[in-house]
């Protein structure tokens, strides 16, 4: 209801200003809320979590007695010692290279422990052994199978002390996105 003509003009303009202000507040709040949501829900690529199962696999594997004797028979070495021997370029008493025996042993262990099929919950695995030489990482071997680019990972790491460097055994199991197990 208008009292005076110019007062009507002021009232209608003022109402529009109020509405615009209200809409601006709502828009700002929505934008802030969306940014906050996006930040809190963001996944940092493949998250790798420490797993007892993967750790037990490495512990049991590293303690396995291999077919390789380094000095004399029957001084057969464990897989841990074989990794060290491979890093130092040693050869077994039967003439096979330590690295060759190490790779084939790990391949057998991985094949028998983790069945990867289309329906399995384990979609892939990756075993990487590298030497940490004064902050330069040099791969000794990398064994991988399946798809480890998507989904969730559980893994474990073990350090093997060697002469001037540390050898690291890193194992990662990749699961499907639907369930961990």
């Amino acid at each position, binding site marked *: *209801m208008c*009292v005076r003509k110019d007062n009507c003009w002021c009232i209608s303009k003022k109402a529009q200003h*109020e509405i615009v202000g*209200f809409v601006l*507040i*709502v828009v700002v*709040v*929505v934008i802030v*809320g969306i940014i906050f*949501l996006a930040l*809190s*829900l963001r996944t940092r690529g493949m998250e790798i*979590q420490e*797993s*007892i*199962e993967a750790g*037990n*696999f490495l*512990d*049991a*594997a590293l*303690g*396995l*007695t291999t*077919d390789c004797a380094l000095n004399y*028979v*029957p*001084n*057969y070495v*464990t897989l841990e010692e074989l990794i060290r021997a491979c890093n130092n370029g040693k050869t077994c008493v039967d003439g096979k290279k330590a690295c060759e025996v190490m790779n084939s*042993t790990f391949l*057998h*262990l991985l094949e*028998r*422990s983790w069945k990867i099929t289309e329906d399995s919950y384990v979609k892939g695995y990756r075993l990487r052994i590298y030497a940490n030489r004064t902050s330069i990482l040099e791969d000794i071997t990398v064994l991988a199978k399946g798809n480890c680019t998507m989904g969730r990972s*559980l893994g474990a790491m073990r350090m093997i002390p060697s002469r001037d460097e540390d050898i690291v055994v890193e194992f990662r199991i990749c699961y499907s996105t639907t*369930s*961990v*197990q």
Partner: protein
Amino acid sequence: MKKLYVNYTERKAQLKIQEMIFMLLAVVFFFILIGLFMLSVKLKQLNKQASQLDEEKAASMLLSIANLPEFSCPDKALCVDTDKLMALNLSIYENFFELKKLYFVILYPNTSNVLCTMANYPNCSIFIVVDKGQETNDKATFVKLCRQEKESGYYYEKCAFGKIIVGV
């Protein structure tokens, strides 16, 4: 004129109050929606974490069984002495553990899938401690299975890679 002016002021105040109420309602409603959405996402993450914790708990239980003095290697963790398993009278352990199934299985290097007896040990790969023949929910983890071996007149410890399987 004065009455008109007073009505106009009252009306304006009412409109302002209404405007504020609507704005507050809208903001509260918006935050409630956001909160519900966040809650559902967090609950989903919690479920995943709970399931993973269950698995970790099961693995720990398995390790504690493997580390029992009846089965474990001397001075070694995560190691089962298969010589002890063969020497023990395993039938007395049927009801010792509250388990329906307890197996030790060698995965490498021996994969014969043969049940171990005094006649075929160590050329076998499955050690049954408990098997009540019931349906079970199996949990397993990796262990070393070690024994004493003699070759060329020397005794040495030979360890295989295997699993402990428990059925509850």
